[in-house]
């Protein structure tokens, strides 16, 4: 009887999970707008997402600086920006024993705020990466993206 209870509990939990979870598979993609030329970008302004309490903007700034860009950052401004490009991002976090970054989307825009390129990485718990690694993966994919 105990086994039956356990079985039903497990089935119920599993059903609840199936019913409430969205799609989550590991992937990493990036794409460039047809007319975009990231080779001309020397300076970048990283727009801090208002909901970001984990300093993802600082990780992006640090990674871009490491790649040789002149980097500034702060709150969203009214376009046109004074830098060659603007970077915005969407970070999503999940809890599984500890909090981890499950998904990061980075968009590189021209000074008028029109998108030039975008990159996205999603790693579920078993293949989780540190926020620094997620940032590096997305920026590397954008850098290597083909039109």
């Amino acid at each position: 009887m105990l086994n039956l209870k356990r079985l039903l509990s497990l089935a119920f939990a599993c059903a609840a999970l199936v019913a409430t979870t969205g799609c989550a598979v590991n992937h990493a993609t990036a794409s460039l707008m047809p007319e975009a030329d990231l080779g001309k970008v020397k300076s970048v302004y990283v727009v801090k997402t208002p909901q970001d309490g984990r300093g993802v903007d600082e990780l992006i700034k640090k990674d871009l600086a490491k790649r040789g860009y002149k980097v500034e950052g702060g709150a969203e401004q009214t376009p046109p920006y004074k830098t060659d490009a603007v970077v915005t991002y969407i970070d999503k976090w999940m809890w599984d024993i500890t909090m981890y970054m499950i998904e990061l989307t980075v968009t590189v825009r021209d000074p008028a705020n029109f998108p030039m390129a975008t990159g996205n990485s999603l790693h579920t718990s078993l293949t989780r990466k540190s926020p620094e690694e997620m940032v590096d993966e997305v920026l590397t994919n954008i850098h290597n993206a083909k039109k």
Partner: protein
Amino acid sequence: MSIVNTISSRGLAALVVCAAALMTGCAVAPSTPAAMTPDNIVTAKQSPKTTSVIATGGKGVATDAAMADAVTAAIEKNKTFSKVVQGAGADYQLTVALMSLDMPSFGASFTCKAEMAWSLKRADGTAAWQQVIKSEGTAGAGEAFVGTERAKMAIERSIRENIGQGLSALSKQNL
């Protein structure tokens, strides 16, 4: 005892089905163009010119090909341009790039936020119009049992809304 056996076997079957769903939960079929094609678009002007359509940045269930077909179908339905040309030879080239899909990973109802970059170039390569369109689509808790199906619906609706807004904005231009 037979009732216990029945419940037990049904519980086991449910568990197997759920486990299979979890393991293949993301293996939902890609979205069809029809699911992302808006029904009615507020069209200010119908251009007598022709255009080609390119879609990029497809993510998950929303493939580049399906998005391009959805935009093409919406243009043909609403006569935003006189004709959609496959390949070269059109007066304009319309590029629609899916930049981001923002949606919670869990939930009863899913709301997806889509950002798409719309860009129209003349045949000589000069820019005629460009705009970033942000849209939302929601799938309610009761619309499908499996979460991935609701997530797919939310993505399709956000893209459908985006295509509607994009073509509506495009129709206001003097082409």
